[in-house]
């Protein structure tokens, strides 16, 4: 304790640099990070009858609805895979990405009370959200694997065990990729919504439109030639297709599309964190 005291010296002054990031503070508050992850996860299902089972029920219901509407009624192709598997595999990645954005985009307004009363590195809150959604993702991945096994047993698909194991090994990297993208968008939006509340109302619409621009309910291959640029520019598209490719062996997008998306994710994430930090310094005065 006393050794820590001697070296401890904080300077508070206006307008710190754009590129400043308090790594030491983040390490110091790592316990808070994990406690917030726990809080976010638990508080979402407290006082519900089904509890964490909701994380299984809602994607399953969505998948069934999609199967009826998009596959049966509209006859949209599912790349030769049973529609239930197609939608479930697309939804896990997309749900993670979109909930990270929608929950972190309002960080400053949602935590105004907390931020106005006590100091801790503000990025802890969105980081914790990004991590707690990983738990949800894991539950949905398990659901998917169960459904996949059921299909395999009944002989409707033919998936090799090696494929699934390789998929599981690569999934954390894909998830990290999505986390960087989602947090990049969410953190950037949060510093905008802190100042301009109007944007807050645009976020759900933005996410909806983005979903239709992503290969969640349709395979990339079926996108008409003249609209292909949408999926090519969409950084989420390669990741969602990669998930599907890993477990179901559907055709994937080019490696260059994937690498471009990864590079973009890192840049966007860095920009998001820096602009978030910048807003956090005086946000108590404007929220």
């Amino acid at each position, binding site marked *: *304790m006393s050794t*820590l*005291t001697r070296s*401890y*010296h*904080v*300077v*508070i*002054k*206006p*307008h710190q640099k754009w590129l400043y990031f308090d790594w030491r503070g983040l390490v*110091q*508050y790592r*316990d*808070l990070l*994990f*406690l*917030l992850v*726990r*809080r976010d996860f*638990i*508080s979402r299902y*407290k*006082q519900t009858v089904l509890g964490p089972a909701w994380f299984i029920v809602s994607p399953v219901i969505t998948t069934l609805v999609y199967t009826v509407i998009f596959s049966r009624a509209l006859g949209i192709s599912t790349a030769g895979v049973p529609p239930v598997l197609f939608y479930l595999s697309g939804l896990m990645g997309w749900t993670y990405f979109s909930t990270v954005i929608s929950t972190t985009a309002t960080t400053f307004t949602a935590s105004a*009370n*907390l*931020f*106005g*009363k*006590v*100091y*801790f590195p503000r990025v802890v809150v969105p980081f914790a959200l990004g991590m707690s959604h990983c738990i949800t993702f894991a539950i949905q991945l398990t659901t998917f694997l169960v459904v996949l096994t059921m299909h395999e047993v009944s002989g409707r698909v033919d998936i090799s065990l090696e494929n699934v194991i390789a998929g599981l090994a690569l999934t954390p990297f894909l998830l990290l990729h999505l986390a960087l993208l989602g947090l990049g968008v969410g953190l950037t939006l949060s510093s905008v919504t802190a*100042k*301009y*509340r*109007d*944007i807050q109302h645009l976020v759900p619409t933005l996410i909806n439109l983005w979903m239709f621009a992503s290969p969640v309910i349709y395979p990339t291959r079926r996108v008409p030639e003249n609209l292909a640029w949408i999926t090519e520019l969409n950084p989420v598209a390669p990741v969602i297709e990669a998930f599907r490719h890993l477990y179901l062996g559907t055709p994937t997008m080019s490696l260059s599309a994937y690498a471009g998306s990864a590079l973009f994710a890192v840049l966007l994430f860095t920009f998001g964190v820096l602009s978030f930090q910048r807003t956090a*310094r*005086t*946000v*108590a*005065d*404007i*929220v």
Partner: protein
Amino acid sequence: MAQPIISIHNVSKQYRLGKIGMSSLRDELQRWWERRREAAMPPGMKPERPQNFWALRDVSFEVEPGQVVGLIGRNGAGKSTLLKILSRITEPSKGEIHLRGRLASLLEVGTGFHPELSGRENIFLNGAVLGMTKAEIRRKFDEIVEFSEVAKFLDTPVKRYSSGMYVRLAFAIAAHLEPEILIVDEVLAVGDAEFQRKCIAKMESLRKTEGRTILFVSHNAEVVSRLCTHCVFMERGQVKSFGPTAEIIAQYHGHKHGLRRPGEWIELNTLPRTGTGRATFHRVRFRNSSAANGSSDAQKIYSHSRLNVDLEVMANEAFTAHSLAVTIFSPSGIKLMNYDTVSTGDLVRLRPGLNRFQLHTDELPLNAGNYTVGFWLESHRGAPPVDWIESAFQIEVSSPPDTDVWKKPLSDGHVVSSFQLRPVDESLGQLAS
């Protein structure tokens, strides 16, 4: 001498008046459009910019390790803004602060409590929000639970707690922080009297046994003078004075409103105050009612004098108030006498316009010295005060004139009390024999 643990150098904080928290995209576009138009105008025709407001202006002082510093000043003096900057909740506009120790701030109790989580879970969460590590909290867990007196309800969600339990748990966590610098803002205003005493005792022990540095903001001068070694007196965003507590509090209470003599009318309507303004204290006159009219004694107040106070209240509308009070404070700000209609149960009916009241006190049990007088008007319990002048002016109480009846040696305390103090040896000797 060690380096100061907190050094504040010329810290200023500016706010844009009227625009705080109101920035929307439309405002911003409007401002941008105005700026464009102004740029095209000839100089001299440009409209005035929105006024900026300096909540803090060139604040500088230093705190040595182990000092307990009270921050006093009226509402709007900049105390809370300074605490916010020190706690790193917001940045200063100018200036620099050096902190040479871990700092934890307690601007509110229960920050970060989640209503759905149990008391146990919230102890960990809140502790971490305040900067403790999990291991630290685990080590202090039993102490915290014991201090908070909510052991039975540890696994109940805190939303089921009574407000008293909630506050007790929250303060218990905060009190067990181990920072070198602790910042506390008025949190002691909540909770029952018993618990408040416990909190103050805890803070005293933090200071005495652990040499913690504490920065404390409170309106309660009594607590400030009990806890704090030094005080900072702030006024309109600036440090008015910094020094030993007794000196600064005396200055705070005697501030600008020097001694007033008996018999003259004292204007109250220009004094700084807080209140809704439905009615305001207009003017006041006090006299020594023990002295015969016209005698020279009427010019002074003595120990054991009776006071006769004429008070005028200007009301803007008719209403009934349950509490009209004249209060006398010691130089260090301790409330000595509170002549409050709450204790007699009389309702005060105010008519629009000037209302006159007369207060006759009992003999003042006060030793010689200067005392501060304050005024209070409240319509009903719990409502914001209608008018409240914390310290209006000072009166001087003198030792009784040199007559046989009153000839007693001076004592040091505020309150006059007769007593006997004799050795008991003789009687002991008698019992022993």
